[in-house]
């Protein structure tokens, strides 16, 4: 390996955003034909470092060498020309365009006219070569997230990249999809490509990578050979401390049905059958996990309960009353809380202050308003109290929520939703994109609610999360609940098969 210079050698990279130092002299050395993990908590500087390598950010200091040659990457164009490709965490895809159009965009190689059919053929060829399958003529907005990621990979391969950067690629994938991704990644290495794999999930590091660089606070915290290390060592390097063991579950304390759904059907926004007859119950003091690949109807289920989505048939009973056709306001009046999937668009009004977000939905009744007038003293006192109670940082209720980190934004959502002793909480992907610390925090809070006797419907595509929190686990596939298991019987393998629609012969 020492014979040829490393394909990437970044030394002493510094990047500042105003007063914030995102990278503080970070190094990264990647050898050719290896799968290299770049690991660290959120905010450690992983993405910033990769954006520097990809030409999106210009470093304030430091050097970049590619195969020994010092380069200055001024734009993604430079990076692409140097054989670097990036599979972005937030897909850089254009929803109304087709797969083929997305793949070739910017490098169409077809003269002035597009020639859709020719493009499609060219993309198919590429797919065959790398064993990646997705219909080139479908619009990206009609694809599930797992397939959208393949489009991202195709984009990079189409440009002949030698070095592929995967930025948190598994966040939105099912276990099966993750496995398929790993197959693809290994195939890429075998075809001679080099892969940088950004993640904060230790399991993935051990499953697929050859070598590891750990970042913490914009600096290198360790460079390791995957074979020669273990999970706790990496975790310690990442977090700078030992991790707490997952909270132990106490048995279900109370009984009584909090939510009962019978024969629920609904169409998706595009008019497809999204829910094809859902039956489930959630008891007080119980967490029911809904596992499944995104896009199998989980979001519609959650939204139907809340009243954001109109069911076409079926009943949703809370306290004996059918709320299937109630609007969110009336549903919430029955003690239903909701932690939505996309906290930035759905959970929060980003331009509002923390205090104002804490009263969203509660603004029109006491104690926050009296006779149609807001009580600003109560609102700000409430803001200070909840910000403290839910550990929002900075602990300033007058801060604009859009400026907070993802974890703190989620704390604001939780603070609002959990502070009024709800009877049922519908939670959708509560820890997506959060770092380990914030994830721990969210989990603790949910378990606290359960302990209080609240029913929790937890929708998540993170199996770790489902298994760590749920008392029972229901698996959703194509608009149906294909199985409901006690948590103890739900092995990762079994859940994975169920999520992929294999209901028969699933090993217990």
């Amino acid at each position, binding site marked *: 390996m020492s014979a040829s210079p490393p394909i990437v050698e970044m030394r002493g990279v510094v990047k500042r*955003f*105003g*007063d*914030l130092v*995102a990278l503080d002299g970070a190094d990264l050395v990647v050898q050719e034909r290896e799968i290299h993990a770049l690991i660290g908590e*959120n*905010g450690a*500087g992983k*993405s*910033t470092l990769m954006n520097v390598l990809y030409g999106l*950010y210009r470093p304030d200091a430091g050097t970049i060498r590619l195969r020994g040659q010092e380069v200055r990457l001024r734009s993604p164009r430079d990076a692409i020309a140097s054989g670097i490709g990036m599979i972005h*965490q*937030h*897909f850089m*895809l254009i*929803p109304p365009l087709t797969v083929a159009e997305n793949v070739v965009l910017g490098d169409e190689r077809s003269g002035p006219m597009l020639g859709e059919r020719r493009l499609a053929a060219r993309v198919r060829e590429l797919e065959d070569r790398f064993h990646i399958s997705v219909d080139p003529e479908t619009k*990206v*907005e009609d694809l599930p*997230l797992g397939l*959208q990621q393949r489009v991202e990979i195709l984009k990079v391969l189409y440009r002949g990249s030698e070095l592929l950067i995967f930025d*948190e690629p598994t*966040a*939105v994938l099912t276990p099966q999809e993750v496995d398929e991704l790993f197959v693809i990644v290994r195939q890429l290495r075998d075809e001679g490509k080099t892969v940088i794999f950004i993640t904060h999930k230790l399991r993935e590091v051990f499953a697929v990578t050859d070598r590891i660089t750990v970042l913490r606070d914009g600096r290198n915290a360790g460079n390791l050979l995957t074979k020669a290390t273990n999970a706790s060592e990496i975790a310690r390097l990442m977090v700078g401390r030992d991790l707490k063991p997952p909270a132990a579950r106490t048995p279900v304390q109370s009984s009584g049905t909090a939510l009962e759904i019978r024969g629920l059907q609904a169409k998706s926004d595009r008019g497809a059958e999204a829910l094809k007859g859902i039956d489930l119950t959630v008891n007080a003091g119980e967490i029911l996990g809904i596992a499944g690949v995104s896009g199998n109807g989980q979001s519609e289920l959650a939204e139907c309960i*809340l009243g*954001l*989505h*109109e069911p076409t048939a079926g009943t949703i009973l809370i306290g004996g009353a059918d709320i299937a056709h109630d*609007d*969110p*306001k009336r549903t*919430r009046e029955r003690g239903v809380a*909701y932690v*939505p*999937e*996309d906290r*930035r*668009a*759905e*959970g*929060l*009004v*980003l*331009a*509002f202050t923390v205090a*104002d977000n804490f*009263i*969203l*939905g509660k*603004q*029109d009744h006491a104690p*926050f*308003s009296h006779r*149609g*007038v*807001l009580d*600003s003293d109560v609102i700000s006192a409430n803001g200070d109290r909840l910000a403290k109670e839910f550990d929002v940082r900075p602990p300033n209720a007058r801060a604009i929520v*859009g*400026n907070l*980190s993802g974890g703190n934004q989620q704390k604001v959502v939780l603070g609002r939703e959990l502070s009024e002793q709800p009877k049922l909480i519908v939670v959708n992907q509560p820890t997506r*994109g959060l770092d380990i610390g914030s994830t721990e925090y969210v989990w603790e809070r949910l378990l606290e609610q359960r302990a209080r006797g609240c029913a929790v419907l937890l929708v998540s595509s993170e199996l770790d999360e489902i298994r760590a929190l749920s008392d029972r686990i229901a698996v959703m596939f194509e608009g149906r609940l294909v199985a409901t298991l006690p948590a103890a019987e739900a092995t990762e393998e079994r859940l994975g098969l169920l999520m992929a629609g294999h209901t028969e012969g699933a090993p217990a």
Partner: protein
Amino acid sequence: MTQLQQPATTGPGTESPAPSVGQLTFQWAAGPAIPVLSVAIALVIGAVFVLLSGNDPVAAYSALVQGAFGTPYDITETLVSAIPLVLTGLAVAVAFRTGLFNIGAQGQLLVGALAAGWAGAQFATLPGFLLMPIVILLGITGGAFYGGIVGLLKALRGVNEVITTIMLNYTIVFVMHWLLQAGPMTAQNAFGTPASTPIGAGARLPVIIPNELVLFSRLHAGIFLAALAVVVFWFLLWRTPLGYQLRAVGLGARAAAQAGIDPALHMVLVMAIAGGFAGLGGMIEVSGVFGRVYDGFSSSYGFDAIAVALLGKNSPLGIVFAALLFGAFVHGGAYMQSHAGISSNLVAIIQAFVLFVIAAETLVRSLTRRRHGRKPVEAIA
């Protein structure tokens, strides 16, 4: 259930928030320094135009200022010009706050004026304490009705409010021609000025400055209504749950929806409220200035209002200042023409540059923000 204008997102992340039509979130809270600077820059650019036209900029501007504020009479006239702009400015701003672009203040003002003018003439014999509330109420209701149509079409049929407001502005112009030229409201008066029957004395807003103080001042009690409207605007938006809901819908429609705030309902509400402000403006012009509805009496209040709202950053005080500035341009501009011989169209050019520099102010703002280190939200991961 409700259609939202939020862009569709692919993965879990979305574009970092950026100001858009619906999200003019900036406020005068940052202080009036930048708008004042913008006006100054615009005046300098305007001066170049005056020079190019072969005139003396100093003479032009001193005439402009003198015309607008030179005598107590001029000051009261500048205020009279500003009053309708305050009301229509509020009408544009309140809709902006809920994420809607209300180009329709013009039409809403006219409907309010027609409704008020009709009531004022129909019940002309009623005493003021009865008639005035009726006229005010009808003005507001008329505007609210016309604005409400826009909200309803948006809520029920998803029709973009820009289309409806533009079309309704034109529609009312022709309806007004009919009503006042050959229709049910047409007055039988000498030489056929197209106008409605005069409103009763009880529907007139009295002049509030006695002749002993300012001779012949027209400044009428409408200024109190305008001031009240500004307070109502502020109170509504920042001190009531409804205002909170309107702002929440404007800044995050989906978040509002899941919290039980129905965006469609609030779009209807806010357009009716906007129309109410504009309609009150129309009523004030009829009751305070004209005493009847003249055909085409407002050629541009509703359009200037967009500039006023934008210049005033959709904030109550900002709108008042912007309306005063535009009122000064209107009244002072006439004097500039008669005394400095400078075309009144140069005033329009200067107004344009004021707005343009205000728009470009975002640059100044973003530069200062960058320096204070507000990092891009997605920069860290």
